[in-house]
């Protein structure tokens, strides 16, 4: 039996009464008070997630840029020092090895924050392709990461506003951290990267400022409402970025692994597309359920904001247009759903 890894905040989660579950080789809090309450807190106020299980890879050197530009789908040349970018690590078939955010720390130094389940494979992937003048290091064990998310998160943390996809060195109540204007909830917020030994003090400071602890359960429903794909479910090494609706993070005028294949898929038009849908009959779609028109559900849950079943899944292109009716096989019961424009949930405009 594999031993589950623990983040530096494990004891705090247990003390808060979190329900701990295995996730990607880690023992992680899935919920504290309850998924629905935590979800709504992030939509209306401020929640904090321990995402220290995620991987941090550093690529440094005069050829770091060339190495990454050749491996990542987005155009790295558009990222300045202090900037960040959502991008994909792709394979030769145009499949998605991982999705990640790359931060340009210095002119020749980048940080990649990657999915926990893929951290080791991503590191191997980069290491095998490392060239002289690029040095790839796995910093995951030295880093703790807290996502503080919600419309009041910036105010509660006493931070100044800053544009999305930027970062800066900062501190929260004297605890130094990298303050990243990124997230996975569709809300304003930051991701705070700190040294492992500072994780406890940072967590305590963030809670003292009124952030509510939230688990992976709410993280999943929040990202699904805004149609952020989950690697391993909605996007995998077997699915390509064009079919997944991620063509906007593929700089097809540059050369990166699998770009030829992606150009071909784009030119021919994908046979199927990752569509978002809302149930029109009472049922909760789940990953793996068949769609009668073809394809299957890759993510599904109840939307805590809309109080209705929602999901994403690959359907034949003809059925992927918003307004199309599809039928989900809910454990033998056919249930109607409607394809909708992404995101499924759109935050009301507010100050």
């Amino acid at each position, binding site marked *: 039996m594999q031993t589950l890894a623990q983040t530096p905040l494990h004891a705090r989660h247990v003390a808060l009464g979190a*329900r701990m579950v295995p996730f990607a080789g880690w023992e992680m809090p*899935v*919920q504290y008070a*309850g*998924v*629905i309450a935590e979800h709504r807190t992030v939509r209306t106020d401020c929640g904090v997630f321990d995402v220290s299980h995620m991987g941090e890879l550093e690529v440094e050197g005069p050829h770091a840029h060339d190495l990454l530009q050749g491996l990542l789908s987005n155009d790295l040349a558009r990222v300045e020092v202090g900037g960040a970018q959502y991008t994909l690590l792709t394979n030769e078939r145009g499949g998605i090895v991982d999705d990640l955010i790359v931060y340009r720390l210095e002119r020749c130094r980048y940080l990649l924050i990657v999915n926990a389940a893929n951290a080791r494979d991503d590191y191997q992937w980069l290491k095998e392709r490392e060239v002289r003048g690029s040095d790839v290091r796995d910093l995951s064990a030295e880093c703790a990461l807290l996502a503080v998310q919600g419309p009041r998160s910036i105010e509660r943390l006493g931070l100044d506003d800053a544009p999305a996809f930027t970062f800066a060195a900062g501190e929260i109540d004297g605890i130094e951290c990298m303050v990243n204007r990124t997230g996975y909830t569709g809300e304003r917020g930051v991701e705070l990267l700190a040294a492992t030994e500072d994780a406890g003090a940072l967590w305590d400071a963030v809670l003292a400022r009124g952030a509510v602890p939230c688990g992976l*359960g709410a993280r*999943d*429903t929040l990202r699904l409402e805004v149609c952020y794909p989950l690697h391993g479910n909605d996007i995998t090494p077997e699915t390509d970025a064009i079919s997944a609706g991620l063509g906007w993070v593929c700089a097809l005028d540059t050369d990166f692994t699998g770009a030829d294949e992606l150009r071909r898929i784009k030119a021919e038009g994908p046979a199927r597309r990752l569509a978002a849908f809302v149930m029109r009959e*009472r*049922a*909760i779609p*789940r990953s793996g359920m068949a769609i009668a028109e073809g394809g299957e559900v890759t993510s599904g*849950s*109840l939307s*805590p904001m809309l109080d209705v*079943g929602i999901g994403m899944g690959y359907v034949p292109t003809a059925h992927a247009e918003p307004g199309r009716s599809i039928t989900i096989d809910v*454990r033998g*019961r056919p249930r109607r759903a409607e394809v909708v424009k992404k995101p499924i949930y759109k935050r009301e405009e507010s100050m």
Partner: protein
Amino acid sequence: MAAAESYPDDLKYHSEHDWARVDSDEATLGITWFAQDALGELVHYEPPEPGQTVTRGEPYGEVESVKAVSDVIAPLSGEVIEVNGKIVDAPETVNDDPYGEGWLVRIRLSDPSEADSLLDAEAYKQVLAEQ
């Protein structure tokens, strides 16, 4: 608000975490405090149809939380005579009051003697202690 843990003495229990309140040849069925706690806040109840036959030890419906789906196992056999429509509309009622307002179905028993094989509260708590 979620209920406090309890296993009333006047109920019979099935080891799959279901309870029955037997009243001569009828019974009211539901899931135990342990079952609702393990699932978390319920958001969906897929009930059987009135008139449908349920079989002891077999699933007769489904309950779902945000993260999970669970079959509901019939502790006794019989015919569904009433479905708790309140749970269809407000599944979280099961979390609030698993043995009262949170009942799931009423059935007419096809073999009332089956009730003798169910667990009493003490025996069910023993099952939980061994998990």
